[in-house]
């Protein structure tokens, strides 16, 4: 024997399917933990290890970007941090913008700028030329002379 329906049982409460809000929340937690490690690694390698902050110049960056390890590292950093920030901004918009039109416009602006920055950043990481033709050998990475 079954009991009668509970009073005011809402229609279709068991809505199945993907819940973006849940995955957004999960993403913030997971990427947050990864970013703590990635960002401090990035800061240490750039600012503390070796000669410290003085070492940063074109040659230093070019050297890092031609190493597959740092290419993957920087790609991870770029995508995780940018989407993490954009998702945070999205929740801020949800929190403080009540008008649907303004909300949609801000969400669109956020998504567009995030997409542009992701594409540009990824292009830079993978198509960067560490040894531009005709550059002063003093300024480029040390391995450029071997080419």
């Amino acid at each position, binding site marked *: *024997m*079954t*009991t009668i329906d*509970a009073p*005011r*049982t*809402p229609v279709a*409460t*068991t*809505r199945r399917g993907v*819940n*973006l*809000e*849940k995955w*957004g*929340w*999960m993403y913030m937690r997971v990427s947050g933990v990864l970013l703590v490690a990635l960002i401090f690694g990035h800061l240490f390698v750039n600012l503390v290890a070796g000669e410290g902050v003085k070492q940063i110049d074109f040659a230093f960056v070019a050297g890092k970007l031609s190493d597959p390890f740092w290419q993957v590292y920087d790609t991870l950093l770029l995508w995780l941090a940018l989407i993490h920030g954009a998702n945070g901004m999205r*929740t801020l918009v*949800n*929190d*403080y913008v*009540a008008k649907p039109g303004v909300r949609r416009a801000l969400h669109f602006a956020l998504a567009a700028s995030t997409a542009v920055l992701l594409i540009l950043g990824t292009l830079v990481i993978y198509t960067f030329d560490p040894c531009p033709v005709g550059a002063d050998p003093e300024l480029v990475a040390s391995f450029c002379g071997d080419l």
Partner: protein
Amino acid sequence: MATTAPEAPTQEVGAVQAFTVTLIVRRFDPEKDAEPYWQDFDVEMYSTDRVLDALHKIKWDQDGTLAFRRSCAHGICGSDAMRINGRNRLACKTLIKDLDITKPIYVEAIKGLPLEKDLIVDMEPFFESYRQVQPFLIASSKPEKERLQSIEQRARFDDTTKCILCAACTSSCPVFWTDGQYFGPAAIVNAHRFIFDSRDEAAQVRLDILNDKEGVWRCRTTFNCSEACPRGIEVTKAIAEVKQAILRGKP
């Protein structure tokens, strides 16, 4: 307490010291005022009195038009949650001596719910989201006597059974202030009370309801709710446990 200052011979021996407290109350009468305004009252109070007593003195002796809700006046009916000196408290549990009476005491209605008059707000949106989580035992079994439960099973949700639905937590939540669609801490606390009840069979239904765009994921762990709760419920912890239960897919 029972000391009499020698320079005050008119005072009876053993009399409790009374002092004047200034209350600044945010008044609003929808039939007369376009905007709420602040009005101050001076009342003679004892340190053992509560803010509710001060409001009573104002209403009974000074201005009968002051409107506020109260029922039991002993911290269990949840009627008189209000914003006292910028913090959500129960007027009947806030002692005058715990506030700084050298300054005026600011009293206003709780935020985030439609203001009706003076300290009274429309609680309907609050109770609507409370009803949506189905806050009642759903069980198909029909035992001869009671539904048995071990001490551990009862302890699992003990904290959230303490809720008195005063709305102090929900109306202290910044997400609720700006997004009226969010369930709010109180509804999630009351869902938690049944989700983790071993006798209840509809935990999954409630988890599905709260796994929504406006459900638990809107919680920003600001901890305003835990601080506001006059019953000392660890509200943010309860919400986090519901989040974990949704991720696990079971309580």
